[in-house]
C-alpha cells in the first residue's frame, strides 16, 4: 500500500493527500511543495499531483517529512510511527481552530503528536505493545548511494527512551530552543538541558572509549608484527 494511503486512509476515505518535492534540473531542492492525491479506489495504485488550498492541510503538508520523522523517532519504528502520525493528524485537523492559538505551527504539531503518544501510553500502560528492535529503528535511516548509516549513533539513539530521543531530535535535529523543546514535550527547559548533557556526555564517553580502543589496537599491532617477524 502506498505510504500516502496508509497515512490518510482514515482521514479521507477515497483519496489521500501527500506531499512531494519535485526534482529540479537546476539542482535546487526542495523546489516547491506539491500536494499529490493518492487514490485508493478503482484499483489504481498511484498518486496524482494537485495543488490544494486550505491553511491547515497546506501547513501539515509543508512539514510532513519533519512530522513523520518526529513520530518515527518517538515510536522507535516506522509502522508505529506512521500509525501515530495518522491518528495525530486526524486530531489536528479536528482541533485546529480551538487549540492552536498563536503557537508556531510546527511546535503545535509536534506537541499534538507527543501529547497523543503520551495519552495513549497512559491509557494502555498494560498493553502488550512490543518494544521496537534495533533493526526496526535502523530502518528509519536513509540508505542512499551505498552510504551506510552511522551504526554507533543509531544504536545509541535506539537505546534511549522515547522522550530522550525526542528531546535530542527537537534540539539537534529541528534546532528548537530548550524552552520550545520543553513546551513540545510538556516539561521544563531545565529538564531538556539536563537530558542533553546526560545523553551527549554518554555518547562522548562511547566515542572516547572507541577511540582509546583503536589507539590500543594500533599500539598492539606493531608488537604482533615484531613477533611475526
Amino acid at each position, binding site marked *: 500500500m*502506498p*505510504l*500516502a494511503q496508509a497515512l490518510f486512509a482514515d482521514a479521507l476515505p477515497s483519496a489521500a493527500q*501527500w*506531499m*512531494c*518535492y519535485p526534482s529540479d534540473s537546476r539542482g535546487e531542492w526542495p523546489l516547491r511543495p506539491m500536494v*499529490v*492525491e*493518492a*487514490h485508493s479506489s478503482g484499483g*489504481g*495504485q*498511484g*498518486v*496524482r*499531483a*494537485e495543488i490544494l488550498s486550505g491553511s491547515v492541510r497546506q501547513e501539515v503538508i509543508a512539514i*510532513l*517529512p*519533519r512530522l*513523520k*520523522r518526529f513520530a*518515527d*523517532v518517538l515510536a522507535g519504528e516506522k509502522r508505529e510511527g506512521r500509525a501515530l502520525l495518522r491518528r495525530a493528524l486526524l486530531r489536528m485537523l479536528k482541533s485546529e481552530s480551538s487549540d492552536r492559538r498563536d503557537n508556531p505551527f510546527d511546535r503545535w504539531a509536534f506537541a499534538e503528536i507527543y501529547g497523543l503518544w503520551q495519552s495513549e501510553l497512559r491509557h494502555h500502560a498494560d498493553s502488550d505493545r512490543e518494544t521496537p528492535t534495533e533493526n526496526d529503528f535502523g*530502518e*528509519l*535511516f*536513509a*540508505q*542512499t548511494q551505498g552510504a551506510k*548509516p*552511522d551504526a*554507533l*549513533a*543509531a544504536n545509541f*539513539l535506539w537505546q534511549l527512551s522515547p522522550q530522550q530521543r525526542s528531546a*535530542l*531530535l527537537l*534540539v*539537534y*535535529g529541528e534546532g528548537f530552543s530548550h524552552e520550545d523543546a520543553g513546551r513540545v514535550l510538556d516539561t521544563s527547559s531545565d529538564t531538556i*538541558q*539536563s537530558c*542533553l*548533557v546526560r545523553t*551527549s*556526555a554518554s*555518547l*562522548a*564517553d562511547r*566515542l*572516547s572509549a572507541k*577511540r582509546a580502543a583503536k589507539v590500543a589496537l594500533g599500539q598492539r599491532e606493531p608488537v604482533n608484527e615484531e613477533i611475526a617477524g
Partner: protein
Amino acid sequence: MTELSDELLVAYVDGQFVREQTRAIDKVLGRDGVVAARVDALKEAHGRLEAAFEAILAGEVVEILATPMLPPRLKPQRENGLARIGVAIVGIGIALAALVGGYGWPLVMPNLAALPQQSPAITGSIPAAQQH
C-alpha cells in the same frame, strides 16, 4: 588539570555562551589537553546526532519520492472568464429564440378581455326557438 563540568562543556559546544565565557573556555582548552579531548568528543557526539537526524529525514523524503505518481488530474478552470461569457451568450441566444418562436411566457401575458365569452350553459326548460 582544570575541572570543567560536562554541563558547562555541552553548553559551550552548543554555543549557548556569550563571547566572554566562550573566550574563557577557549583559553582553558588551549592549555588543558584533557578538557580539549572531552570537548572534541562532545563536538563529535553533537555532529553525529545531527547527521543521524538528517539521515532519518532523508529516509522520510526518499520514501515519499518512492510513491508512484500519476499525471495531474485536469480540473475545470474556474478563472476562465471567456468560457463563462461564451456559455452566457449561448444561454441568452436560446432564450431569445424561444421568445421569437412563440414561447414568450412570461413576457407576453394573455389578454383576458379578448377571450371569447362563453354563454352560460342553460339546462332546462325553455327551448332555443322560443327564447327570442
